[in-house]
């Protein structure tokens, strides 16, 4: 019983730290989510466009970033960028490290978003875009009005997976001076709290965030299944 009380106290005595940490994790997730979905979709549009230069750029970007560890992207932005006089300003009322963190997440995650969106474009039947072209739509209209809206429906499940992976990847920011969920541990260590109980609560926190996403994904998968 005593042990249980200790575990419980680990959380309630340090509620401020856990709240601040997970709030920053959520902020990182939301900002990087919007950013990577946008940039990833733009990259996908480049990769299916009729312009070879854009196709080449998209392919080079995706193949480079996909084979680079996210930790290296973080390290580059935090340690190397100041050496070439790129100092990222603080945004959203937070430090420059926070800015570096979400930019690293956007750079990395958008490569995976791009590949998912591109595979989604393939699932839309050729008749759709042929019909759109037949009534005189341009490439931009075919993609933006006809193909992508239908593609997004069928790629919701894999896209959610990419977003879940990104949520878990926010913990890497802990190694780069951002107080988010992963960094709670180091701060708790300074306060002399139990490490293992702290990590237990962080794990529970992530499960609380991820389980609804997984559940939503399963529901979407069933309800949005497209029969083509």
């Amino acid at each position, binding site marked *: 019983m005593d042990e249980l009380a200790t575990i419980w106290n680990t959380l309630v005595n340090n509620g401020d730290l856990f709240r601040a940490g997970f709030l920053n994790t959520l902020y990182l997730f939301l900002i990087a989510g919007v950013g990577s979905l946008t940039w990833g979709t733009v990259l996908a549009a480049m990769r*299916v466009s009729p312009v070879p230069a854009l196709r080449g750029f998209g392919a080079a970007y995706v193949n480079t970033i996909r084979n680079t560890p996210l930790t290296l992207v973080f390290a580059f932005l935090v340690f190397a960028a100041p*050496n070439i*006089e790129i100092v990222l300003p603080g945004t959203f009322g937070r430090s420059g490290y926070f800015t570096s963190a979400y930019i690293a997440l956007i750079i990395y995650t958008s490569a995976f978003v791009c590949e998912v969106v591109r595979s989604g474009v393939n699932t839309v039947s050729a008749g759709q875009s042929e019909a759109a072209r037949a009534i005189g739509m341009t490439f931009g209209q075919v993609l933006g009005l006809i193909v992508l809206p239908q593609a997004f429906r069928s790629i919701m499940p894999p896209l959610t997976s*990419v977003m879940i992976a990104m949520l878990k990847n926010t913990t890497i920011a802990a190694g780069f001076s951002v107080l988010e969920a992963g960094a709670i541990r180091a701060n708790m260590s300074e306060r002399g709290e139990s490490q293992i109980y702290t990590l237990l609560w962080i*794990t529970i926190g992530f499960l609380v965030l991820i389980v609804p996403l997984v559940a939503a994904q*399963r529901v979407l998968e069933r309800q949005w299944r497209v029969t083509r």
Partner: protein
Amino acid sequence: MNAPKKTRRGFRRRRREADVSAVLYDIPGPRARLRYRMIGAVAALAIAGLAYYAFYRLWESGQFDAIKWQQFTYESIQIQLLNGLLATLKAAGIAVVLALVFGAVFATGRLSDHVLFRAPAGFVVELFRAIPLLILMFFAYYGTKDTGLQVSPLVAVVFGLTLYNGSVLAEIFRAGILAVPKGQSEAAYALGLRKAQVMTLILMPQAVRSMLPSIISQMVVLLKDTALGFIITYEELLYVGKQMGGRLVFGFPYVSTYLVIAVIYIGMCAFLSWFARWLERWMRERGRKTGIPVARADEIRDPAMAQGPPV
């Protein structure tokens, strides 16, 4: 004799690349061609501008000065870099073997007829895919500090990589086993083999074979994730990079060091990815005889991908 063959292959490749987008736009006429060419020129200019800006920034801040690259000429520093690479490969190598074992055991567990095995195996696999990998490493590295039996960073890195990638591999194996035609296990049972024999002799070898592209792709993920060891002070490539970049005598050569390290990582991962894709194609061409579907190399696998095929 040679020329027509070449043309045909070129044609086939062009068609394969094109089928993604060929239906999105017509074969351009003269005006569209001009438009595309203009957009292409603007895009090429923008990309060139971006490249020039990056180059200018690097050049202006002296990243191409000899001093920033000088340390790569010292043998002791080359050895340091090599040791970092070896540490990365060591962690990845041990973790790959352990994760394969973990994956095979838990895939078998999830497919067991006994709920006593099935339920815990399912729980473990789902749990370890949901916990951030870094937190798993923290558990091993900092969690053991309380109990007094401190493990080394290598053990912590391997622990995390094994549990996470082992769980993902378990799902890959499970999908592979379920994809083996039913007649295979029925025939094996008819011959009098036991459940364990059917699994180890008949199903698992075929599943591993058909899922090989996915398994290798997962190894790319594992290799990349060894870089997390940097955060828990495992002296791998990125950790060595931080040390090298932080040297004042060479004017803090972070940029050059990270560029070199990025090339190493990208080279290794691109080779593995290419191998996975090549294997997929090769097996697909051969597989027509066996009829077992071959897994895709570039599938995105992460939590919650267990149910249903992607896309």
